């Protein structure tokens, strides 16, 4: 069975190769090939899952060793896979949601002339993401990590004719580089500390390593997670990334790739467990981001950017949970999976709305769409109820557990983190209700002459329905007998937290803040008509519209500071380094011209040189004996 693991990665990889190298002859069938291979990968995933369920909890992890890339001394870079419960969860999420989004894209990208390329990139993304979660060592994980970065870059800038898309792609790439640097430093530190990159030996050796080193590794891993998962302070790229086609936002920038940071932290749990300072940094980042994203989400009028703010905030919850240690890992992953369902569903719904509204993204120009797009309204509505944590739906179970775990951290920290998580829940209810009301309720704010809203074709609505079903039931299913926690426990370990407040109190307060958030939103956007032009707004609103001034800050500190630094360095480089380099190059060139003259083109001079060479060779050999 373990020999099938490579097939998971191979199927989409073959798809990417076919579609990207196949040329025009695949234009008409390419999207079906891509979709088929994504579904094939999902099928393999399901088969492996069934096989895994059939074994006892301790024997579920599988390994597949492919080959080793130049082992030198202690350096071993293996291409080997590890499929345990954690990876399995991701595999099913990635291939399952991935397949649905492939299917959806067949309809969404129907009129795009570069559709084949789009599916090629989607396949490439799937392959890289699967490599990331299946790798059995950090170096191979890094390959996948860079691969998803590349796919994300290519897809954000897919409509490269739009300067905004090209810039957004570049921005995402550059910000991610900062995070990637963290990961590469972490890997180098691991090698110097443990002498290996493989998960098993590294994570087993954390007990016998100094806390200082582990803290350094942990902080570098956190930096990497911040970049990939758009956490403060590397969050600035996610909003702009919405320039990509909506299926991309759903798959990469909501359901899967942006959760890679959470995977990294959970996978490296042993490192963080042994480094409390790094763990503290993780929860701080999570708590700050969950509020930051929520506030930004409240002010955006662009439906995709509002959802992007929400993504950032929800991943903040996951990072917070992952930072709590064994009491939180399982819930972080559980929220990650439920979030994968409802956020992908919400994005696909947003795409469906845009599809029917001439690609308009400004919610102030929507209104009253529920009559025109009943299926979209219904599926989006279920996703909405799930994300705000409506009792009984997926988000309720996963988020509630995280809030409980945050309180259970204990002491003042517990109160602060729990409070932040609770506040975040209220704000989530507010901004999501706002999105819902502005889009589907109220008066029409669009021109009926130019816009003819209509429901999307079946190929788009069916994936939305499937995701909506997941958004409703997944959380409940995972919570029966704590099945999800039991499933993950062998990998992430699990401990019940001791909350200073009872679970019932937490649940009750969650429902109260939920109602508060919904009510406030209704007062502001439901009872009164929504102005078609955005009002000036308070200082906070204006700041939030500008993403809380993140770009202004980055520009002031990093861009200007960086420019200054480079000009200084360039001057130094010109005078010192270039002088030496150019000197060497010039002398080599001179030497080359000189030696070239020996090549006269006359056989006679060649023969003389050979004779001379032979004489020297003989003389040297004799001399060696003499010496």
């Amino acid at each position, binding site marked *: 069975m373990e020999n099938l693991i490579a097939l998971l990665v191979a199927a989409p990889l073959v798809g990417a190769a076919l579609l990207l190298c196949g040329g025009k002859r695949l234009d008409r069938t390419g999207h079906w090939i891509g979709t088929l291979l994504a579904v094939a990968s999902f099928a393999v995933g399901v088969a492996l899952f069934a096989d895994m369920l059939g074994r006892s909890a301790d024997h579920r992890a599988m390994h597949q060793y492919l080959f080793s890339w130049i082992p030198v001394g202690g350096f071993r870079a293996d291409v080997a896979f590890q499929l345990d419960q954690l990876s399995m969860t991701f595999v099913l999420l990635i291939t399952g949601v991935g397949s649905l989004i492939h299917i959806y894209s067949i309809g969404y990208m129907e009129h795009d002339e570069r559709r084949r390329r789009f599916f090629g990139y989607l396949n490439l993304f799937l392959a890289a993401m699967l490599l990331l979660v299946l790798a059995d060592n950090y170096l191979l994980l890094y390959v996948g990590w860079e691969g998803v970065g590349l796919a994300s870059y290519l897809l954000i800038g897919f409509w490269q004719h739009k300067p905004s898309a090209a810039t957004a792609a570049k921005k995402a790439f550059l910000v991610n580089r900062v995070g990637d640097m963290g990961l590469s430093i972490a890997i180098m530190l691991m090698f110097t500390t443990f002498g290996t990159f493989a998960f098993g030996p590294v994570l087993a050796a954390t007990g016998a390593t100094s806390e200082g080193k582990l803290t350094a590794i942990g902080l570098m891993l956190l930096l990497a997670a911040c970049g990939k998962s758009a956490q403060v302070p590397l969050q600035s790229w996610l909003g702009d990334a919405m320039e990509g086609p909506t299926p991309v936002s759903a798959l990469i920038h909501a359901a899967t790739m942006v959760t890679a940071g959470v995977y990294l932290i959970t996978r490296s749990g042993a490192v963080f467990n042994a480094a409390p300072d790094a763990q503290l940094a993780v929860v701080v980042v999570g708590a700050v981001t969950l509020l930051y994203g929520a506030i930004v989400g409240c002010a955006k009028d662009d439906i995709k950017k509002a959802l992007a703010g929400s993504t950032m905030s929800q991943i903040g919850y996951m990072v917070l949970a992952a930072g709590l240690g064994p009491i939180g890992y399982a819930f972080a992953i559980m929220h990650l999976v439920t979030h994968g369902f409802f956020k992908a569903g919400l994005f696909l719904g947003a795409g469906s709305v845009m599809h029917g509204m001439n690609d308009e993204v400004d919610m102030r120009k929507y209104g009253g769409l529920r009559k025109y797009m009943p299926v979209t309204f219904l599926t989006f509505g279920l996703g909405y109820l799930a994300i705000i944590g409506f009792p009984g739906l997926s988000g309720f179970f996963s988020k509630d557990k995280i809030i409980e775990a945050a309180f259970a951290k204990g002491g003042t920290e517990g109160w602060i983190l729990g409070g932040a998580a609770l506040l975040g829940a209220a704000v989530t209810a507010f901004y999501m209700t706002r999105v819902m009301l502005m889009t589907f309720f109220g008066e029409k704010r669009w021109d009926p002459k130019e816009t003819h809203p209509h429901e999307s074709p079946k190929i788009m609505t069916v994936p939305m329905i499937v995701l909506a079903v997941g958004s409703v039931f997944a959380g409940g299913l995972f919570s029966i007998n704590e099945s999800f926690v039991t499933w993950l426990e062998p990998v992430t370990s699990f401990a019940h937290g001791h909350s200073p407040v009872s679970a019932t109190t937490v649940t009750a307060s969650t429902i109260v803040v939920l109602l508060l958030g919904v009510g406030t939103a209704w007062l502001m956007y439901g009872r009164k008509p929504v102005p078609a032009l955005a009002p000036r707004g308070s200082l906070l609103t204006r700041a939030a519209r500008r993403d809380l001034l993140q770009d202004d800050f980055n520009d002031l500190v990093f861009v200007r500071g960086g420019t200054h630094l480079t000009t200084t360095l360039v001057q130094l480089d010109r005078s010192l380094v270039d002088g030496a380099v150019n000197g060497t190059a010039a002398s080599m060139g001179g030497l080359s011209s000189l*030696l*070239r003259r020996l090549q006269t083109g006359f*056989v006679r001079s060649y*023969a003389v040189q050979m004779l001379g060479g032979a004489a020297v060779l*003989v003389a040297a050999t004799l001399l*060696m004996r003499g010496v």
Partner: protein
Amino acid sequence: MSSVASVHSLWTVAAGAPGKIPGPHIEYAQLSPTLIVLGAAVIGVLIEAFVPRAARYYSQLLLSLVALAAAFAAVIGLAAGGFGSSKAHIAAMGAIAVDGPALFLQGTILLVSLIAVFTFAERRLDPAAHGKRVDSFAAEAAAVPGGAAEQAAVKAGFTTTEVFPILLFAVGGMLVFPAANDLLTLFVALEVFSLPLYILCALARRQRLLSQEAAVKYFLLGAFSSAFLLFGVALLYGYAGTVTYAGIAEVVSDGAKQIDPALAGTMGNDALLLIGGALVLMGLLFKVGAVPFHMWTPDVYQGAPTPVTGFMAAATKVAAFGALLRLLYVVLPGLRWDWRPVLWGVAILTMLGGAVVAITQTDIKRLLAYSSIAHAGFILAGVIATSEDGVSSVLFYLGAYSFVTLGAFAVVTLVRDAGGEATQLSKWAGLGRRSPLVAAVFAVFLLAFAGIPLTSGFAGKFAVFKAAAQSGAGWLVVVGVISSAIAAFFYIRVIVLMFFNEPKADGPTVAVPSPLTTTAIAIGVTATLVLGLAPQYFLDLAGQAGVFVR
């Protein structure tokens, strides 16, 4: 009348005395790779004589491919049968070794030749002459360039299908060369593969004068170096009283036991050994193109038809390094302290010389020629290691390098203008804009030449440098890395030229080849990437093949 009778009596005496002159014992099965190729070459000559002209091309092509594939299968069969390891021994009355390195190199040579046949047979690149498709070879090689006979031959649509049997003869010689186990077989094999190469060099369809000049230069210098080699053989015979490798090695390590009365004055004289060894070494260094015996390389590489250049650059190097390894590891290991310092010097000169002079080249074929000189230096670094790792790293390097070289020269045949192949580097400016795929493929080959990771070039260079460093040749590795850095400059410069310079208005076009050349290039790229991404399997394979039979 009486003389006839005496000859007759000699015959009858010989025939009438059974057991006195025993027939040599030949292991036909173990020599089958060579026999298949040489047999096919003979059939090829017969095809030229008896098959109608129209059918010759396809029958020759088929024959060559089948023969080379069959020979390759025979090599695999022998290796699988254990002749590379446990059953390795010396066959054909002590003349030919059947062991790991021999089989590995023969396999490589056969694969390389198979791909070379694809490029030889390419007929879509040159514009059709009078309605007939033509290849890179002269219409009638014996006609005076530009003369009336040549024009008549072109008009009649003649092609030189003799190139296929000639190629097979050369391959036959190359198969024996690294397996030769005595000095005379070595010399015969050298001539058997060199003479066909001289002819092939002279057969270019375009720029025939340049091609013929190259062939004459190659022939003269080749003959010159063969003379040195033969002189060295004579001296070694004088020293040891035998030409077999094992016999010489024994005298070197234990001294002469039975003095042959005819050689009483010379046997055991170390001066003969040292001078003879150096001269034989020189003959082999000439073939691999090491400084200072490299002068022929750029001129011949440039003048020869490009498919021939590719074949020569790849296969000759494999065969010659194979012979060099066997000579140094089997015959002269006892002299290690004498030849190692000398080869150190040669390797350093070769690496630096090739890399430095390549900087100022303006012709792509000459550039690749100097690059091949530099590579010869890198491989010498592995040879000097005198360890099993050294042998396996050299074997791996040779395999990796020959695919890159063949592929690169195959790409050169595609870039053309009105005068045939556009080999002037300046004409390649902006090629990446016009033909991104071809330029990208060539860039992969250049990166492999430069030894950039994830290509086979890196894995090979890493292996030889590692072996050299482990054997204590640290400084050699330092020089090697410096020359790699110098060499990277001119490889990257071509990439910059192709992708970042504006294309010229009257620049060359990229011809669309037939599946033959496409296959050759595709195999080259695949091998380059596979050996770069997952070299370990092949390194292990070369490692298992790294022991010489003595």
